[in-house]
């Protein structure tokens, strides 16, 4: 399988929403060691609205669909998650525009745009102990898959593994952004909740995608 069409992208976002909603309590728990315990609820809120208003989201092309989701996330996700995840979706939608299918190179470019969107609004980088520490390795993995000419399911699997590994590494980082940064050295030893959530979501999506 060498392309994702609009139907695939729609399914992927749906899987993301289901995984986020199923893991709300777990993500909250992850966020309580060094945060305020609301990572799951904040994300979940926006994605529940996406499911609720699923019928009304445009599905004519990938850009319009991602933009519709991005707006709902921005409007409904709580706290910092709204702007950050919203920026990811909106920037991805700006790349995708009116395309109705993406090959692996285009998927990789689109994910890079998503990361750029997050960095622009959140001003964090690799090593600051944020969700970027899972996302940036996962995007690097997609780039490698492009060079190796992996098919898409394999690329997704490898990318998810890279996200999980990146999230695990955040245990060794002192948080420089977000609420965990107030704890300084005490943030060591706990993985970042946002990065871990990205690992869980990407792994779940990759598995579900392969099943269907």
């Amino acid at each position, binding site marked *: 399988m060498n392309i994702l069409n609009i139907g695939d992208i729609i399914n992927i976002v749906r899987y993301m929403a289901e995984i986020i909603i199923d893991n709300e309590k777990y993500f909250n728990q992850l966020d309580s060691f060094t945060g*305020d*315990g*609301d990572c799951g*609820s904040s994300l979940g809120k926006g994605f529940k609205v996406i499911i609720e208003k699923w019928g009304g989201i445009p599905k004519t092309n990938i850009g319009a669909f991602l933009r519709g989701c991005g707006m709902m996330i921005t409007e409904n996700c*709580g*706290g910092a998650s709204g*702007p950050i995840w919203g920026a990811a979706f909106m920037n991805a939608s700006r790349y995708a525009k009116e395309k109705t299918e993406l090959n692996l190179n285009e998927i990789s470019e689109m994910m890079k745009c998503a990361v750029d969107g997050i960095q622009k609004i959140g001003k964090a980088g690799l090593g600051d102990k944020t969700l970027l520490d899972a996302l940036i390795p996962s995007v690097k993995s997609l780039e490698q898959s492009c060079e190796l000419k992996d098919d898409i399911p394999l690329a997704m699997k490898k990318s998810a593994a890279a996200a999980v590994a990146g999230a695990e590494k955040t245990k060794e980082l002192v948080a420089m952004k977000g609420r965990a*940064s*107030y704890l300084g050295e*005490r943030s060591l030893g706990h993985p970042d909740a946002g990065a871990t959530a990205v690992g869980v979501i990407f792994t779940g999506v990759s598995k579900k995608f392969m099943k269907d």
Partner: protein
Amino acid sequence: MKKIINCVQDVVIEMCNGLVKACPEQIEFIEKYKIIKKKVLNKNKVTLISGGGSGHEPAHAGYVGTGMLDAAVCGDMFASPSIIQVYNAILQTRSEKGTLLIIKNYSGDCMNFDSAADMAQEEGVKIEKVYVNDDVAVQDSLHTVGRRGVAGTIFVHKIAGVAAENGMDLLQVKAIAERVIDNVRSIGFALTSCTVPANGTPTFDLPDNEIEFGVGIHGEPGIARETIKTADEIAEKMVALIVKDLPFKPEDEAALMINGLGGTPIQELYILNNSVHNSVKKRGIQIYKTYVGNYMTSIDMAGASVTLLKLDNELKELLDSPVEIPASKFI
């Protein structure tokens, strides 16, 4: 979890409705965007808007009224309100003299309020912003998100609020707000964590003989866990840090706030005030005015914060002015 509650998802809405029912002549609730705003706006003065996550009551909705805020935007528990919520608050309280946003320095609040301000500016609203970062627990650094905005925010609301009420223009009100921010310092400690309704259990556990020092107002751990101290010891430790940070000097005049974090009995706040007064006075600092109570809480966290604001004559006069807000409606 034992709380006075109906459904977890209705906490913020029911709380806002309950607040309005206590002061129906003064404030109203825009449920769609979870905004508490003054019923009757004065379009000839600078509009003041603040807000943030819920869970800090009476902050911020309790400070909507004459002499303080025109609107408070209520996010979910401990989560910043969304861009759309803040944007609508700005549009619905638009005045002839522009809008000042009082933003507590947290990533979520900064992102959402900043983006909302950009959107509203495109609609022609004149906007200025100030960021409150009074907590000294965290060292400020270029590489981090900076210091948290905590109880000192209340002084910004009041002093800037009265300045706006007195007819100052947008840049003047902003300058006064920034002067308060530059001269206010706080630090807090916790005897327990807090329980967020959606989670049902305390965010962290704290043994009986330990405290968290240098806590914020969102239930996260502090900068250090220590064995419990006496009121005098904790007061001395907190005052020493605050005084050194600004620094406050002998002969300086200051306003003092002993702020309960929600779960501490008033009697303990008065005991803390007694100890803090001693620590402040022995450093030669004159306490001009003292405030004791729950001003910026963390749901049901047991603990308190101490805030000192260095005053000059203009700030004293503004601070002395009466205000009419739900939070001061005792009797």
